[in-house]
């Protein structure tokens, strides 16, 4: 067995994926059988940067300690559940215990224990040592349906005409609020009705309602299809691009038995409203640029396929390469992506923070990086930045054109107020150089003027620039004059 190497992993484990699905339900409380790190990273740190949630309020760890690694985690689990009950945190909630890589490592299977403690509670074996987040999300959706949905569906249930479920949007899904908003707008636009958005707007209690929709729209290619198949109704995937979206609307209308004239009326109206900027930009000189630039796409499978189809097939942009998640065998992994970006960076790179770092390593300042997937901290909680649907096509085109404009203006000559001398400052030596009191005071005053979040790096670069200048002049300490000069040269910016 050979060892596979990973660089800066793109997909997390099934524990994360499943918890991001279950965590959407307001009537569930998750206990993760985890050391404090697995709890903190998921529940407090990362979800704040993917979903802008201060923390996941319905997640509690067993806080596995050394003794639990040796003796098993049952005692820790019982104590955690008892404490949650004491604090009233389980009132009106279903308890769900989820395993993690570490608890699986020590074979802490608590299916029976959890059933003994509370017959209504469930244990989810996340298989985090083998499965990625997409499989974890898929299995969590199916688990919720099988445990909380299917058994409670009346035998004679019939789908309500013209109703649609949207399956998939959950925590940790890049840009989900905007895409969901657009999907709802499109679906209701042709005269259909949203039955349930699952799991984003669902709950344990509403899970049986999944059976009531006539058609399911699976938001992502990377997970959710399994639940749609289990529901046994026709399903479609969420669309991208002008033509992709048009085909989707016609097919959805057909599946729901909506008059084609009604669907066509909506499409016609969209052409003159949502899509008008696409037509205007296409007719304008801006679209000519699309033939002249290339792009690379690193994103989850829906976005990877959707961007390739819209930018490449519909707009005629050159697609240098694509790497979707989960990754196919013939797509570059991060080791290869890094090599390619170092060797030659395309004009546009859609990706995660990993690609952004690789571009920075190569000092590829001419490339525009556009966030299109996690990992990476980015707030996408508004409804105004869709990638999917008609609004997504218009938004993407607008975004790209604005980046073109930026490139153009950055190339125009400019004469700065103070010309940079001697290039950027080099890092100071290992030894701390003395500063006069006046110089230190001046540094602090200058830093006060720097925006809050930029202060650390500003203080570092100012300090380095001043010390370098002092050394260059053979001075033994940084004086007021030296720091003034460094400030004037804009070392803080």
């Amino acid at each position: 067995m050979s060892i596979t190497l990973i660089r800066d992993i793109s997909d997390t484990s099934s524990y994360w994926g499943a918890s991001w699905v279950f965590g959407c339900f307001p009537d569930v409380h998750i206990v993760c059988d985890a050391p404090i790190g697995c709890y903190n990273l998921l529940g407090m740190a990362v979800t704040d940067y993917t979903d802008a949630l201060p923390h996941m309020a319905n997640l509690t760890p067993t806080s596995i300690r050394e003794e639990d690694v040796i003796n098993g985690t049952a005692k820790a689990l019982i104590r955690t559940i008892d404490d949650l009950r004491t604090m009233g945190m389980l009132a009106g909630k279903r308890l769900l215990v989820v395993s993690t890589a570490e608890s699986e490592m020590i074979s802490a299977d608590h299916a029976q224990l959890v059933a003994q403690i509370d017959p209504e509670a469930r244990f989810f074996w996340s298989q985090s040592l083998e499965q990625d987040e997409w499989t974890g999300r898929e299995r969590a959706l199916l688990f919720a349906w099988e445990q909380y949905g299917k058994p409670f569906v009346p035998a004679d249930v019939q789908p309500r005409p013209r109703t649609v479920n949207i399956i998939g949007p959950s925590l940790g899904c890049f840009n989900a609020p905007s895409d969901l908003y657009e999907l709802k707008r499109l679906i209701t636009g042709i005269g259909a009705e949203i039955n349930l958005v699952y799991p984003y707007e669902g709950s344990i209690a509403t899970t049986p309602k999944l059976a009531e929709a006539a058609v399911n729209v699976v938001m992502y290619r990377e997970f959710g299809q399994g639940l749609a198949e289990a529901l046994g109704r026709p399903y479609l995937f969420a669309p991208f691009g002008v033509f992709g979206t048009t085909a989707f609307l016609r097919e959805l209308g057909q599946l729901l038995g909506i008059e084609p004239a009604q669907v066509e009326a909506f499409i016609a109206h969209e052409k003159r409203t949502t899509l008008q900027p696409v037509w205007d930009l296409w007719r304008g000189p801006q679209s000519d640029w699309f033939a002249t630039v290339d792009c690379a796409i690193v994103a989850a499978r829906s976005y990877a396929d959707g961007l390739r189809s819209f930018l490449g097939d519909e707009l005629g942009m050159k697609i240098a390469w694509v790497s979707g998640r989960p990754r196919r065998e013939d797509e570059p992994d991060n080791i290869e992506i890094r090599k390619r970006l170092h060797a030659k960076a395309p004009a546009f790179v859609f990706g995660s923070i990993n690609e952004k770092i690789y571009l920075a390593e190569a000092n590829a300042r001419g490339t525009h990086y556009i966030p299109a997937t996690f990992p990476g901290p980015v707030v996408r909680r508004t409804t105004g930045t869709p990638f999917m649907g008609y609004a997504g096509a218009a938004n993407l085109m607008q975004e790209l054109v604005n980046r073109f404009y930026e490139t153009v203006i950055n190339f125009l000559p400019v004469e700065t107020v103070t010309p940079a001398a001697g290039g950027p400052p080099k890092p100071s030596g290992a030894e701390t150089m003395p500063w006069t009191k006046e110089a230190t005071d001046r540094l602090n005053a200058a830093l006060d003027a720097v925006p809050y979040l930029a202060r650390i790096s500003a203080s570092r670069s100012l300090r380095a620039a001043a010390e370098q200048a002092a050394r260059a002049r053979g001075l033994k300490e940084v004086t007021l004059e030296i720091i003034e000069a460094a400030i004037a040269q804009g070392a803080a910016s």
Partner: protein
Amino acid sequence: MAEIIPLTPAGAEAPAEPFRGGACKLHPQTMCPAFGALRVLTRIEGAQPAMVTDTGCLYGLTFVTHFYAARKSIVAPALGTAELSSGKVQEAANAAIAEAATAANTSFIPVISLCVAETAGLAEELLPKEVDGKPVILVRVPAYAIHSHPEAKDVALAAVMRRFVDTSGEHEPGTLALIGEVFPADPLLIDGVLRKMGGRVVTTLPGRHVDEIKQAGRAAAVAALHPFYRETIGVLRERGVAVVSGAPIGAEGSAAWLRAIGAALDLDEDVVERVAAEEEAAARGFLASKPLQGATILVSGYEGNEMLYARLLIEGGARVPYVSTSIGPSALTAADEAWLKAHGTEAVIYRKTLEDDQAAMARWSFDLVIGTTTLAAYAKEKGIPSVYYTNILSVRPLFLAGGMVASLSFVRDLLNRKPIYDRMLAFFEGDEGREANR
């Protein structure tokens, strides 16, 4: 300076039983402990970390490392059931080390061994000592055994220090190494004062260069500015470097610290006394205005240096009945805890949980909460001005008279922000907000 608007009437709360923390301890407040090690190691130039762990751990830790520590690519082996159950952990670690060594700019390879690798058992003696002349350094930081991320910073720094510290040269008289991640201007402030006493700062760790670590071994003394670098200062102590605990915090603390440094560096006593008195006088001059008088403040961070900050607030006139931190108690924390207890702090909680902090919020009423993200959110939901401790602490000087003025002025400004917290709360959760949610 504007008046502080909200004041908690002194002594308004009835005396009660001693505070015992939260009834249940469900949500520990610390970053993943291993992050502390990554924070220290990824920031060193030439370090190419190899992480040995499962994919979920790798995702979470690289995510926060790339945002909070360094934009550095991290290598790891894929480690699943197949590898773990067939005893391939060693082989996997070696494969990652080999990959890490390939880059031309790699100068050493920290191997960061995490929960599942530690559970499976990673043997140090089976790892290479170096690859192509690039040292390989094993750093074991399983979250289940380390408990807080500040303490993992110590584990990591001690590991690299054991390997790199200069053990050949003489100690340079009058030189001081600082230990603790401090605001970059702080070492300058300290160095400025030290030079007046005839000493100087040679380096501040953790830093960006291996040379800085080497240099620490040649210092005459080391100052553990943050109270959790126990292993690190142990390495230096073995090397014959004198250790000074505590930090130059506030008026009392700065003067006492300068005297301790003077003694450790064997500086002229009269000069030291004069400089210490000057520093104290400068600080007392500012404190005379009692900038925080009347304010009750909660301090709850997970950086391990919360007690320093609390001391400063108390000297500024604030009442700080409760301080909590993620680290455990030790000889390095004892002096600060004793000082706080002697100055009105009723509870100092180590290895705290969210429930401890929430119990403190129920016990006392606060004008300002300087807390973890979760606690700060909880306080904002109650309309209490609150800020994330780490953000606040890391963006301005803290030490000596200069740092004190910068930090206390900022806290005073925060106290005046109460109306905007109230307005937001009234809108989202007040009658108007509840109307909308109905």
